[in-house]
């Protein structure tokens, strides 16, 4: 992360990623119903996005310890 301790993150920096993830998850959840086989792949990517994000931040900071 390496940011200066006094820097305050922007509102977009704090709530933007969760909002984007919420939208991606929502699209993923319904994609398989609406788009057939391509929708299934979109579904895996969209619903799996939170898993990837948590894994990314977890691994970056040293795992679950």
């Amino acid at each position, binding site marked *: 992360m390496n940011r200066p301790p006094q820097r305050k*993150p922007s*509102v977009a*920096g704090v*709530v933007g990623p969760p909002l984007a993830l919420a939208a991606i998850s929502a699209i993923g959840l319904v994609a398989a*119903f609406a788009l057939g086989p391509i929708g299934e792949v979109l*579904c*895996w990517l969209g619903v799996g996005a*939170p898993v990837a*994000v948590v894994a990314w931040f*977890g691994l970056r900071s040293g795992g679950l310890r």
Partner: protein
Amino acid sequence: MTAGTVRIIRLVHQWSSLISTVFLLLLCLTGLPLIFHHEIDEWLGYAPQAKPVLERGGKATVNEIARAALAHAPGKVLQYLAWDRDAPGLVIAYTNHAVDGPPDDAVLTAFNIADTSAAGPVGTGPMLILLKLHTDMYVGLAGKLYLGGMGLLFLIAIVSGVVLYWPFTRRLDFGSLRRNASRRVLWLDWHNLIGITTLVWAIVVGGTGVINSWAELMLMRWQATELAGMVAPYAGMPRPSQLASLDQVVTNARAAAPAMEIAFLAFPGTPFTSSHHFAAFMRGDQPLTSRLLKPVLLDGVTGEVTGAAELPIYLKALFVSQPLHFGDYAGLPLKIIWAVLDLFTIVVIGSGLYLWIARTRRRPQRAAMVPGRRA
């Protein structure tokens, strides 16, 4: 947001979570293997296997399947016949001691379309125990409604948690996990990160779980309103002593709902129809339309179609909510993702409990260190 508002929302988040914690853990732990219930049933030998239907051998008729089912369960009656989209070589027969017998007394047996032989029981084994624990804890409708209430508390906890996200993380970059702080702070960061990233999934699974817990109530309402209206002209008619040919019933139902296939056939007197009618529930062939059943009512004696209607919006919501709850609508990869998200939810619930315990323990210490200051 004022400090007072944050305190109130924090209390809502804390107590809605704490009250439901034990039951949410039960739901998450039993739900985890249920995501893979098809695979587990196959591994454990509880999934009936269909014999191949030979092109030249032909298929058994619906009448032949029904006769085989009744011969297999002497003294019982047929309640339903069901055609599973994922097992096209089988028909599942529901037999019970009476046409209006309770669902828990029904025996489900799969029969081969190839030769009418019994392929084995359906819905038995360890997965049935987990399903009962997950849906009603073996106490029927009261258990379903109670777990539905716990689901509502879960939704309240999620919404209040989202409201608290900004006040608690506004000084942190998204995804911050403060390794150098105390264990409590680190678990708070994990709680916040996993909770906010899995937000939509948790709302959908929690919300659809609540809807599923109301399934019986929805069915009762449909019977008392829409279904009662459809069968009103036949009110008071007794159950037919001689039923129409099932093959004719299925053929007529298919003709009344072109481009649809039969999902299940309810016999006269069962909760899904009137005392005088068969009800054929038809499904489409698309991912969404295959979930939205269309009921076709057929005269119990003649097999003629007497009415067809779209399901009301609340039953459509119920049918769509089922795959969205179990995550079984986009193959094995989605099931695996669903399972990981279930495990994440267990971490969120467990970390929330840990944070509450840690905070409760810390409070007297801080009060002792700083006299007069609220912990």
